[in-house]
């Protein structure tokens, strides 16, 4: 009994004292932001046809569907061409900003609004890749995804250096961003154009209010206690969200795998042959023929796919096996990207998979990236960024040196 209690208290300490998996969260953030950014840029010439007010899924059709299913989209606020262009631009901008980790809490909300607005505007344009992005953009809002590999981390490091030297640190951008967001949210609420549903508007308001509370507590609280409490709550939310992201990835593979087991084509070992020969999924017919020329090979790949998908969630209990399967799945997705012509679906899946990458590997990857960047920019070698510790957040505002 006491062992159980000890276990429980250690677990509680762990999920409340820090935001776990800073590198994993950062790579998930970068992965999804990059996927969406590349997708938006690729579809830029087709943006009107896909999501514009006069596209085949017209403004009126979208209005009738969202009135029925209450999906959130800011794009039905106006059917003006300019409004649409501004929204598309903001979606591009927010994904670029999230990619580099600028004000990640605010940009992750903006990113989510961009993803949901475009996807829910024309829900029949999407595929599995859009679906993954849709879910993850919501979950990312709850994470502290800018602890490493971000402009936020750099800003935090600079601020703490400045404070250590006794220099005052002032943040004007944060409050300004908060005020602008508040104005937009307020205007939307007053005119009744909240975008549909209650969940997403509520989430936006909660984040906005949370930011205000965070700032106010840092500024006016007489003891560090409220500040630490907010920090603990943010960690709890982050850890909950990361757990959901991992569970969601497992659910994707489990569902895909267990349903395949029931299919006769997956049983007789020919399943992989068929998608390769569908007109909509065969950009390289000659390559597809080559890959499916040998029946035994096709069977091995077919069985291997099912086994890996079904087994993956269980391998999480063994680090080494998990890493092997992770590599196998990422490779398979990279192949799918080219062979089935599904680059953005594959990128999204790889981004979701990367939440399971080992920290040591991610650190090494970060080191290579930093060296590569420095070589390009001809900078001096710099140490790797370190995750923002809870102290880094809390210390400054309670007044270092006071």
């Amino acid at each position: 009994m006491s062992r159980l209690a000890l276990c429980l208290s250690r677990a509680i300490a762990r999920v409340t004292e820090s935001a776990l998996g800073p590198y994993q969260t950062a790579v998930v953030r970068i992965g999804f932001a990059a996927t969406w950014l590349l997708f938006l840029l690729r579809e830029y010439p087709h943006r009107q046809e896909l999501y514009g007010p006069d596209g085949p899924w017209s403004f009126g059709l979208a209005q009738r569907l969202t009135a029925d299913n209450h999906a959130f989209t800011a794009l039905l606020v106006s059917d003006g061409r300019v409004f649409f262009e501004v929204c598309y631009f903001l979606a591009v901008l927010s994904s670029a900003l999230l990619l580099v980790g600028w004000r990640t809490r605010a940009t992750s909300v903006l990113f989510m609004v961009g993803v949901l607005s475009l996807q829910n505007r024309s829900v029949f344009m999407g595929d599995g890749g859009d679906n993954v992005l849709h879910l993850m953009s919501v979950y990312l809002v709850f994470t502290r995804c800018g602890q490493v590999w971000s402009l936020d981390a750099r800003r935090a490091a600079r601020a703490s250096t400045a404070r250590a030297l006794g220099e005052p640190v002032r943040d004007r951008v944060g409050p300004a961003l908060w005020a602008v967001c508040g104005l937009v949210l307020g205007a939307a609420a007053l005119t009744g154009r909240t975008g549909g549903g209650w969940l997403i508007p509520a989430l936006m308001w909660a984040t906005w209010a949370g930011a205000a509370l965070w700032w106010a507590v840092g500024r006016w609280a007489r003891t560090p206690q409220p500040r630490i409490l907010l920090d603990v709550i943010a960690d709890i939310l982050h850890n909950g969200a990361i757990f959901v992201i991992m569970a969601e990835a497992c659910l994707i593979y489990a569902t895909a795998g267990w349903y395949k087991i029931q299919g006769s084509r997956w049983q007789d070992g020919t399943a992989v042959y068929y998608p390769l020969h569908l007109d909509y999924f065969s950009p390289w017919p000659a390559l597809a023929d080559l890959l499916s020329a040998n029946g035994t090979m096709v069977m091995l790949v077919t069985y291997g796919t099912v086994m890996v998908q079904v087994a993956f969630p269980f391998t999480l209990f063994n680090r080494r096996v998990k890493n092997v399967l992770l590599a196998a799945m990422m490779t398979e997705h990279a192949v799918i990207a080219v062979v089935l012509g599904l680059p953005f679906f594959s990128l999204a899946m790889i981004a979701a998979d990367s939440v399971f990458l080992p920290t040591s590997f991610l650190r090494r990857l970060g080191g290579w990236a930093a060296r590569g960047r420095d070589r390009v920019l001809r900078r001096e070698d710099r140490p790797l960024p370190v995750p923002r510790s809870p102290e880094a957040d809390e210390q400054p505002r309670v007044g270092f040196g006071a």
Partner: protein
Amino acid sequence: MDAYDEEPAGDPAGSPGPPPVVGVDAPAGPRTGVAALSPRYQVGAALALALVAVVVCVHLGMVFLSVAPANTVTRQHGKAIEEWVYPEFEQNWKLFAPNPLQQNIAVQVRADVLMPDGSTTTTGWNDLSVQDGRAIDGSLLPSHTVQNELRRAWDFFVTTHGADNRPIGMRGSLSEQYLRRIVVMRMYEQDATSEKGTIQRVEVRSSTTNVPPPDWSGEKVSDTPVYRVLPWWTVTSDEANGSVR
């Protein structure tokens, strides 16, 4: 979850770089997490933890049930599950499962076009899916407009219509308009006759052909296409103007 290579607890900044400057005046021992809070604030933290834990468990349970096959629980609580999951957490992961699609479904269209000289011409059948396929061929980054638009519009149409091609519910009529708008847009873009005149009516059909089984399987399937022909649809003036660009 064990699969993570976490930093050892209590050393969140354990990196090869220099120690962070921020911790300089941090006293040794536990300063973070609930341990750093006074009992009053610990209650707040405990409440937050409990709330998040409950929401996470309920959410994952709901999402699991929404992707699971129909079962005792979903039969009893289907409504609650739907209300939780739709619209923002909807998901479908039956990727190429239980069986991959083994037919090429092509959407074809022909139109009655009013020509500038006042005569009406009926075009030949245009295979829009073959055009999509050609656009995808050799492409590293196929656009959603060629890979998903028509394909999913047809899926949407089929799932919201009976075998007699009558719409089921509101979505049935939405899918009809959507499909019509797509084919009209495509005809104006790619059909030489339609480009010159004004489309008045369209007729859509699907042609389903089995993917020829692999040589090494020894299976035989019919290679004659099966058609599903929809009734002629009158094109509204809004659609005929080709508002879609």
